[in-house]
C-alpha cells in the first residue's frame, strides 16, 4: 500500500507528461531527420564557401580583396546601402506612425501595398525600372535628351535596391506600434509636448529594438541583392558591379578562389545579421516583459511604476 502510494506520488510529480511524448527511438529518428535536412541544405553549403575560399591558402584569400575591381564593387555596394537604407528607414517610420497611431479607411489595403515588393520576383523588380528608364522605356527618350543615365548606372541600382528593401523597416515596426496603441503619446501631447518631441521621447524608445532589427534586415538585403540589381546594372566592370555581381563575374571566369573569398564577405555579413537578430529578439522579449506588468511575480508595486512613469512625463514637459 505504502509503495503503491509513493509510486503514484512519483508519477504525479514526474516532470514530463509521458502520454504526450513519443518513444525515444521515434524522438531520435525525428531529431536525426531534422538535423540531416538542415545539414544537407544549410550547413554543408555554408562550410563549402569557406573551404573553397581558403583552398589556396590565406595569401590567395586576402589577394582577392586587393583587386581594384573588388574594391570598386565594395565601394558601390556601400554607397547603394548608404542611400537605400536611410531612405527606407525614414519611410518605414513615417508609414508606421501613420498606420500605428491613426484609424482611417483603407488602412489594411495600405499595409498590403507596403508588403507588395516582397511578392514581386527580384527579376521583375529590376525589369520595371528598365521599362521606365531604359533606352526604349517610357522616359528613356526624354532622359537621353538631357544625357541622364539611370539604367546601367548607379542610380538604377539604387532605385532597384530601394524597391526590393522597401517593406523591411515598415513591416517590423508597424505591428509593434499597432500593439502599443497611442495612450502614452496622447498623455504626452495632453501634457504639452510637441508632436516631434512625443515621437522622439515616447514612441521611438518603445520601438527601438524592432526598428534596429528592421534596419539590419534591410541592410543585409540591400548589400546582398542580386536579381534586381543584375537586371539594371549592365555588368560594367569596375563601374556598375556590386559585391554579389562581382562574385558572379569571378565565378563565371572560373576564378573560384576569388569568387568564394568575396562571397565569404557576404556570408560573414549574413552570419552577423543572424547573430544581431537573435540578440535583438532576446532584448525585445525582455523589454516587453518589463513593459507589461507581470501579474504573478511583480517586483515593484503598481503605484511605484505609475510614479516612475509620471516622472518621465514631467521630465519631458520640463524639457520643453
Amino acid at each position, binding site marked *: 500500500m505504502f509503495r503503491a502510494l509513493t509510486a503514484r506520488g512519483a508519477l504525479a510529480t514526474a516532470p514530463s*507528461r509521458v*502520454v*504526450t511524448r513519443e518513444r525515444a527511438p521515434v*524522438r531520435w529518428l*525525428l*531529431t536525426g*531527420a*531534422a538535423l540531416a535536412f*538542415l545539414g*544537407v*541544405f*544549410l550547413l554543408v*553549403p*555554408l562550410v563549402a564557401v569557406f573551404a*573553397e575560399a581558403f583552398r589556396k591558402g590565406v595569401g590567395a584569400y586576402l589577394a582577392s580583396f586587393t583587386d581594384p575591381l573588388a574594391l570598386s564593387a565594395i565601394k558601390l555596394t556601400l554607397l547603394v546601402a548608404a542611400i537605400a537604407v536611410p531612405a527606407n528607414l525614414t*519611410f518605414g517610420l513615417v*508609414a508606421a506612425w*501613420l498606420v500605428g497611431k*491613426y*484609424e*482611417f*479607411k483603407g488602412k489594411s489595403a*495600405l499595409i498590403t*501595398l*507596403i508588403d*507588395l515588393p516582397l*511578392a514581386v*520576383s*527580384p*527579376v*521583375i523588380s529590376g525589369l520595371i525600372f*528598365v*521599362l521606365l528608364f531604359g533606352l*526604349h522605356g517610357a522616359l528613356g527618350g526624354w532622359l537621353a535628351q538631357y544625357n541622364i543615365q539611370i539604367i546601367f548606372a548607379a542610380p538604377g541600382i539604387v*532605385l532597384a535596391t530601394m*524597391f526590393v528593401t*522597401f517593406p523591411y523597416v515598415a513591416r517590423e515596426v508597424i505591428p509593434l506600434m499597432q500593439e502599443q496603441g*497611442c495612450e502614452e503619446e496622447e498623455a504626452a*501631447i*495632453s501634457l504639452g509636448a*510637441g508632436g516631434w518631441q512625443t515621437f522622439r521621447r515616447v514612441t521611438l524608445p518603445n520601438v527601438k529594438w524592432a526598428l534596429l532589427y528592421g534596419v539590419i*534586415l534591410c541592410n543585409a538585403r540591400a*548589400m*546582398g541583392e*542580386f*536579381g534586381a540589381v543584375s*537586371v539594371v546594372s549592365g555588368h560594367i566592370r569596375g563601374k556598375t558591379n556590386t*559585391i*554579389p*555581381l562581382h562574385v*558572379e563575374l569571378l*565565378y563565371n571566369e572560373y576564378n573560384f578562389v576569388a*569568387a*568564394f573569398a568575396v*562571397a565569404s564577405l557576404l*556570408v560573414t555579413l*549574413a552570419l552577423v545579421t*543572424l547573430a544581431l*537578430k*537573435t540578440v535583438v529578439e532576446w532584448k525585445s522579449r525582455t523589454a516587453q516583459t518589463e513593459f507589461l506588468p507581470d501579474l504573478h511575480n511583480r517586483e515593484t508595486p503598481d503605484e511605484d511604476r505609475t510614479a516612475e512613469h509620471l516622472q518621465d512625463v514631467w521630465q519631458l514637459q520640463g524639457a520643453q
Partner: protein
Amino acid sequence: MSQGGGRRARTLNRAFALKRHSVLPGFGWTLGCTLLYLCLLVLIPLSLLFFRTAGLGWSDFWSAVTAPRVAASFKLSFAASGLGAALNAVFGFIVAWTLVRYSFPGKRLIDATVDLPFALPTAVSGIALTTVYSRTGWIGQLLEPLGIQAAFTPVGVTVALTFVGLPFVVRAVQPALQDLDPEAEEAAATLGAGRWQTFYRVILPTVMPALLTGFALAFARALGEYGSVVFISGNMPMRTEIVPLLIVSELEQYDYQGAAAIAVVMLVASFVILLLINLLQWWGARHQRREGV
C-alpha cells in the same frame, strides 16, 4: 429636436470621415509622404508593366506567353517550386517539431541558422550549392553512384528552390505548435489514442492552416527566385530554364514586350498566391476562434 439633429450629424460625420479623430498630430503629412513614396517607387513602376503589356494586344500576348520555350520554363518553375515547397512542408514540419518539443545540445544555434536562407545573398547560396552538388562536390559525389546528377539538371533547380523556401514552413509552423493545447493531446491519450493517431487526428488538423501558409509562402518565394538557381541550373532552354531566367534572357535581346508579358503572368500568379495566403490566415484565425469557444 436640434440636439437630436446635431447628434445625427455627428454620427454621419463619423461614418463618412476619412479617419477617426485623434489628438496626435501629423496625420496629413505622414499620409501624404507615405502615399507619394509608395506611388513613385512601387505603384507607378509596377503599373507600367501592365500598360506595356496592354499595348501588345491579346493575340500577341497569348503567343508570347505560350511559345514552347516559355511554356517549358513555366512548367519547370511551377513543378520545381511545388516539389521544393512540398519537401519543405514535410521536413520543415519535422524541424519545427523537434525545435519546439525536444531538447538537444546546440538547439538554439540551430534555431538561429534556420533563417540563413533569408539572410544569405542569393548569389552566394547559388555558387555554394552548385559547388556542393556538382559531380565532384561533397554531396554530388555521393549522389553520382546512385545515378543522380544534381547540378545542371531539374534536380539541381529543385535543390536550390528548396533551400530558399526552407525558413518559411519552419517559421510558420513553430508558433502554431507552441500554441497547441496540451490538454487536447492528454484527452486523446486518455481516450485510448496512440501517439500517431493523436498526431494526425488532433495535432495535424490544428496546425494545418499554418502548415499550408508556410507551403504557400515557400512556393511563392521559389517561383520568383533567380540568384540561387542561375548557377546550379545550367540555363539550358527547354530543359533547365526557369521563368525569371527567361525574362532576363528576353531583356538581353531587347525584347521588352516579351519580357513584360511573361512578367505579368508571373506577377498575377504571385498575387493569386498572396490572396490564398490571406484566405488561409483568415481561415486559421477562424479555426482558433471556434476552438476558443
